[in-house]
């Protein structure tokens, strides 16, 4: 299929949206045609999500026109967009934790007969949709808040599928998904395209974009840099246009790790409600980067949080530089052990505070607070880590994902830790920033810091780390180092299938 048939499902011209200090969209023109997958790529903060919010009626643009199937439309509310047949999955999860899975899937489109919910029809619809996104085994009566991030994302996709619109917009749907779930999602997207649905797809995983997209639009600083058939783009070009310069897409070379063992974990068992997992032993030397790989739910995050003292342990010791660290986050921090948590919005940052305040939060003074000094501190970090923000006083919530992640890092680096625990440090982060984070981590290791990274991006763990520990069922089931660091071995260990 070279060119989609008929008029564009949605076409926008001259879309402009300004926020105080930033122009999120600057005369953006884009058109999505039926039967085609249109990928939108760009750095963090390029304006992708803003465009999605405008196209779905969540945000009113300052200027510009939107036409739907050839007719100009105004979208005063999301409901208008939904009624036109514009379904979407937002980057910010809109799954409601207190509602059940079924209620979430049907939200806003409950089948009802004379005001009364038609439970049977609803049940059928939900089962069908869950099946399509690969959640056939999930109990629709469960509270959505109990689900893992990945499954919540799939529930959200199921909701969009039930809408069965003419345009489906997916804003980084795959960021939290596992390999299988991604494949299922791609299958669904292709099937929809074949049925004539227009799909607008946003992702930072450029390989994925390459395999999925028919058309590509690159956005930078709110402007369309280029737009065209996917054939014309390779990853290099995308990156170049996104960032505005050449970026070397290689993992920084690993330096030799130092001798002294900085972090030593012995017989660690997290306190859990269910059956206790096997005790974990691990060590990280100075300058060493160790990776934690595993399936979703394999217990990596829990392990990191337990080591960091953010959740209680049932048994075991954690030693930093020869000092035994007793439980509790503050003791760990005092010993030089810090955690960059997985959900940065919920656990990493206080979004309401200005950026500078987040940078100093872990080391806020006991006495007077000097705004001047805080701004200076922020400026310093901004330069060091390449944080892009309007200024030190910009509310953190307005920063893009990658810059928020750097903010969390900056916060902890101010305490000059000797052990850095990173949980999914590059999730939702654009390629450019990703590379910067890799460089930063490798630089820190070069200065003798011990780094432990949990990540679901296998190439990342394999490329970044001296050693990779594979988790399954909360236990470390294997270690790969040197030449043995291959994806296949890691997968086998993670799945528990013999070689």
């Amino acid at each position: 299929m070279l060119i989609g048939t008929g008029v564009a499902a949605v076409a926008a011209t001259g879309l402009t949206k300004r926020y105080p200090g930033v122009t999120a969209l600057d005369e953006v023109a884009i058109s999505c045609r039926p039967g085609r997958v249109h990928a939108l790529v760009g750095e963090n903060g390029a304006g992708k999500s803003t465009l999605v919010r405008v196209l779905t009626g969540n945000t009113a643009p300052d200027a510009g026109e939107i036409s739907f199937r050839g007719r100009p439309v105004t979208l005063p509310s999301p409901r208008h967009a939904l009624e036109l047949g514009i379904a979407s999955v937002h980057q910010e999860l809109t799954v409601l934790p207190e509602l059940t899975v079924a209620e979430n899937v049907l939200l806003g489109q409950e089948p009802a007969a004379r005001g009364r919910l038609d439970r049977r029809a609803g049940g059928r619809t939900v089962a069908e949709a869950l099946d399509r996104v690969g959640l056939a085994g999930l109990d629709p009566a469960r509270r959505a808040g109990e689900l893992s991030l990945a499954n919540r994302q799939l529930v959200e996709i199921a909701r969009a599928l039930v809408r069965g619109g003419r345009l489906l917009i997916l804003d980084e749907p795959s960021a939290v998904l596992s390999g299988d779930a991604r494949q299922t999602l791609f299958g669904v997207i292709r099937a929809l395209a074949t049925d004539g649905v227009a799909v607008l797809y946003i992702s930072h995983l450029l390989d994925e974009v390459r395999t999925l997209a028919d058309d590509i639009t690159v956005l930078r600083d709110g402007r369309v840099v280029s737009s065209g058939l996917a054939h014309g783009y390779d990853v290099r070009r995308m990156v170049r246009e996104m960032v505005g310069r050449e970026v070397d897409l290689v993992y920084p070379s690993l330096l030799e790790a130092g001798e002294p063992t900085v972090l030593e974990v012995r017989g660690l068992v997290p306190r859990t409600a269910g059956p206790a997992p096997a005790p974990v032993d691990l060590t990280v030397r100075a300058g060493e980067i160790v990776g934690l790989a595993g399936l979703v739910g394999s217990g990596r995050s829990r392990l990191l949080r337990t080591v960091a003292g953010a959740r209680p342990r049932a048994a075991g010791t954690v030693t930093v530089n020869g000092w035994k660290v007793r439980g509790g986050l503050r003791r760990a921090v005092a010993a030089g052990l810090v955690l960059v948590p997985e959900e940065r919005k919920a656990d990493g940052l206080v979004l309401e505070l200005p950026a500078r305040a987040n940078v100093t939060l872990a080391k806020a003074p006991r006495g007077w607070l000097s705004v001047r000094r805080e701004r200076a501190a922020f400026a310093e970090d901004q330069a060091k880590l390449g944080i892009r923000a309007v200024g030190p006083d910009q509310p953190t919530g307005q920063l893009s994902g990658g810059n928020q992640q750097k903010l969390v890092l900056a916060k902890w680096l101010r305490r000059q830790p000797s052990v850095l625990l990173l949980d999914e440090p590059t999730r939702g982060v654009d390629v450019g920033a990703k590379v910067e984070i890799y460089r930063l981590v490798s630089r820190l290791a070069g200065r003798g810091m011990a780094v432990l990274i949990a990540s679901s991006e296998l190439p990342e763990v394999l490329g970044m780390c001296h050693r990779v520990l594979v988790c399954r069922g909360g236990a470390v089931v294997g270690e790969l180092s040197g030449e043995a660091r291959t994806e296949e071995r890691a997968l086998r260990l993670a799945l528990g299938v013999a070689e």
Partner: protein
Amino acid sequence: MTTLTAAATERRTPGNGLAGAIRGGGAVWAVVLAGLAGLTLAHGPGFWSPANMAGILAGTVVLGLVALGQHLVVLGGGIDLSVGSTATLAALLTAILIDGYPIRTVPVVLAVVMLGALIGLAHGLLVSAARLPPFIVTLATLYLLQGVALMISTGPAGQVSSALSGFALGRLGPLPYALVVLIVAVALVAFLLRRTAFGRHLRAVGGDPAAARAAGVRVNRVRVVAYLLCGALAALAGVLLAARATIGSPTAGVGLELSAITVVVLGGTSLLGGRGSLVGTLGGVALLALVTGSVTVLQLPATLTELIRGVVILIAAAVFVTRRSR
């Protein structure tokens, strides 16, 4: 793709049953049951006598109606401080407008409930369309409506028909007739919450209005309906207040709002919205009625009644632990 992860099947976290029960308002009922057991031991037959039961049950009707409305509003992420004043105004108007003419009973009751709904509608519009914070809006109308009631009359006024007062004061064995009103209202609210799209939308709006809006929920309309129902239920409570008093008084419903909110929150409903249990709210109503009733039944010293009330609320509150860690 090279990402290493496979969707594990989700398991129910252990202890879900108990946690669920507590979240479902079970804790308050546990306290209520403990109280019942204690009263049975201390004052067995006297306590369970039909007349005494009827007395205690009658005490649940007015508070129950107001709490139901409050439950809806709080579930939707709002709060209504004006329910006591709405009930007062409704009570006064019921008595004044009926003024002893039996034939006026039905139209006046309907009109007064409509008025309550209108008051609720105004709240809903101020909160959703004008985007004012519900706490202040309803604090303002708490004063405003009480003021209107006092402007209408500073003393007792009007008189309800004997049919209405007979209904409010009569009982069948241990069951006061008026309980029917509460039961019907509970059934209606339960139906709305469980069997209609409105119920789901209400919880969604309370949980995360932005997300609900993005999913196509008419956030404003849902909020307005919740306030409207709350106003109507408060007015209905006012009608019953008047019916029980047989006359209207400009102070009939003073203070109801706090009892109503307390009961709702005691029952496990989050004041942040989105999460709540109707069973729990009813448990809260039962608890408060039981505390007032038992103090009289057990003939506890008057100077201690408030202390006891405080201790019981404190215990009930402290018992319900909502551990919601991930």
